[in-house]
């Protein structure tokens, strides 16, 4: 289905859509307060942007450097061209270690590769340990936001879900009570897991290590108990130097959730004694994006979600309306670049307001890229016949002054004379909830001509 259809469904439940909108606006406001408390905020954004542009321009070299340094630390480094290869590699590693139970912390990359269904099909028990992700996992849904996976779910619904799966009291929806229940439930999973899978927030080329940021501590518990840690990473998550972390860690949590830093920012360099650390470096279309200068900067994304929080369309349509692992503004660039046919409506789920560009901590020109995506889809002939034809028609009409003025006069006259039912009917998309403008007797150019004739002033 397309975004407009799913968005309509979302908006049809107006109270819920308003609740969703307010919840995310609240997060945007927290971000604003945090940003305002850092005098050099805009400079930090510029630095982050420059670091990412630099890194992308030298990505192969930095990846080689990272790999060499990681190997020196005793990390097993694997490369995956796409999601399927990534999943196979995970499977091989787990099989080799006789793994039955896996705990996983938040990784949009593994979502992108559809790792969970693949592992389950192959007989592994996979438990998502981030509370929001666990909730959507139990409800057999996908996350609707890359940082706040369960933002679309009401606490009563979490209560129902936990009553069914965790045995909490029926009808109780107190977040503290429910979180406590999840704590016990997941603690048992951490303690019995054979392997922990994490994502990677930042990988450091200079040192061969990487950083994982969480508030819950689930990533750390997941990898500090079992003897196997698999870290999955998109190749664009690299930064050159450890000192660059200062810039990114100052920006990430403030942009994402309006906190100064996540509770845990764990730096991993090599395996824990007596255990193994594997990293999988995944391409899955990223080299293709790198090859497109118009869209290259979107690879700088640090997956903070700020663009989603600020997007007035995302807030009122929900992440699921994008049918994309990463939704919202950044997702509407990245996903259609991979699957343009399926996701052609996404770059149009946007008014080009530019708010996303202004909150992006790495200064990706999101709204300009969304506009460029529309041209990209046009060149692929994916705009849809009616849209293309009406634009061709309009272009022809507007190219001729007399055609334009004649059509304008005709439209105004028609609107003045047509009965209301003829104007406002199901064919009139504008008129469903809005009045059309009052048609004036004269156009501006007619009034101007008269004004010039009447005025005694300068020509």
């Amino acid at each position, binding site marked *: 289905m397309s975004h407009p259809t799913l968005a309509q469904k979302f908006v049809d439940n107006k109270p819920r859509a308003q609740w969703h909108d307010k919840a995310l606006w609240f997060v945007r406001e927290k971000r604003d307060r945090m940003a305002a408390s850092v005098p050099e905020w805009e400079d930090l954004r510029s630095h982050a942007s420059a670091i990412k542009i*630099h890194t992308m*321009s030298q990505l192969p070299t930095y990846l080689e450097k990272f790999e060499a340094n990681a190997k020196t630390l005793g990390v097993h480094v694997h490369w995956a061209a796409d999601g399927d290869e990534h999943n196979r590699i995970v499977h091989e590693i787990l099989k080799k270690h006789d793994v039955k139970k896996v705990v996983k912390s938040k990784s949009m990359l593994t979502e992108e590769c559809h790792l969970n269904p693949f592992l389950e099909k192959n007989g592994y028990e996979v438990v998502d340990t981030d509370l929001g992700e666990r909730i959507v996992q139990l409800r057999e849904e996908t996350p609707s936001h890359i940082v706040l996976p369960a933002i679309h779910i009401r606490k009563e619904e979490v209560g129902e879900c936990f009553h069914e799966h965790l045995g909490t009291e029926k009808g109780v929806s107190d977040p503290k009570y429910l979180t406590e229940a999840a704590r016990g439930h997941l*603690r048992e999973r951490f303690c019995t897991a054979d392997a922990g899978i994490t994502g990677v927030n930042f990988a450091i080329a*200079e040192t061969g*290590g990487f950083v994982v940021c969480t508030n819950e501590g689930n990533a*750390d*518990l997941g990898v*500090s108990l079992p003897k196997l840690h698999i870290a999955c990473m998109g190749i664009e998550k690299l930064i050159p130097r450890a000192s660059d972390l200062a810039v990114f860690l100052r920006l990430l949590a403030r942009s994402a959730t309006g906190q100064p830093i996540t509770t845990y920012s764990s730096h991993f*360099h090599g395996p824990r004694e007596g255990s193994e650390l594997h990293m999988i470096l995944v391409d899955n279309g990223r080299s293709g994006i*790198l090859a497109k200068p118009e869209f290259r900067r979107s690879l700088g994304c640090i997956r903070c979600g700020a663009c989603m929080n600020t997007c007035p369309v995302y807030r009122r349509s929900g992440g699921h309306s994008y049918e994309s692992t990463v939704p919202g503004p950044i997702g509407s660039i990245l996903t259609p670049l991979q699957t343009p046919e399926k996701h052609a409506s996404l770059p149009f789920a946007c008014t080009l307001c530019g708010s996303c560009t202004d909150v992006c901590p790495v200064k990706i020109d999101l709204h300009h890229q969304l506009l460029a995506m529309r041209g990209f889809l046009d060149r692929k002939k994916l705009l849809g016949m009616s849209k293309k034809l009406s634009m061709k028609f309009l272009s022809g009409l507007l190219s001729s002054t007399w055609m334009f003025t004649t059509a304008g006069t005709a439209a105004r006259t028609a609107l003045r004379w047509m009965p209301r039912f003829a104007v406002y009917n199901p064919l009139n998309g504008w008129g469903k909830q809005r009045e059309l403008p009052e048609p004036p007797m004269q156009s501006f150019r007619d009034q101007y001509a008269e004004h010039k004739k009447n005025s005694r002033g300068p020509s």
Partner: protein
Amino acid sequence: MTQTTREKVLANLRAALPESSPLPDLPVTGPWQTFEDPFARFCEVLEAVGGVCHRVKTRDEAHQHLLGIDEWQNAAVRISEVDGIGDSTVDITTIEDPHDLENVDYAVLHGHFGVAENGAIWVTDDTLKHRVLYFIPQRLVIVMPTVIVDNMHEAYGRIKVGQHAFAGFISGPSKTADIEQSLVIGAHGARALTVFAVDEF
């Protein structure tokens, strides 16, 4: 011989990029945010995120403080990796498997310094046997010298990243707001964090 994925990916990346352009300089210079009273700011932020901060002169003072905390006194399983502060109800040197630390109620561990802008403390795995102790106990105490830097740039200036298999910043007790954006302290990691900044560490 078929190209490995590694070779393929690197080749695709090289093909994607324009011919070598001069490596743009990466000056990342400040000025960065500083605070008139970094310690006060550190405490303020730590408390705002649910932590507790005490400044003491000596380790013994911190120890005396701990003795006064009910949860510590009543804790069934306590571990301390810091000489002179707290005690251990189990002999950590005999514990080989980190899973055996599941029931630790209270742990007293090392920190190296704090960061004023975000209430974070730098910790490393060379101060304890099992790194899981930073995450698995119900309640955590971190003891550090009274050293506070203003911001993360200064923090990374102090650290040599890459020397420890595990190191990290910890800012406050664990938390989540995943249920209707309602903040709950105590997700999977510690439910409570107390920090002692010891002048005469």
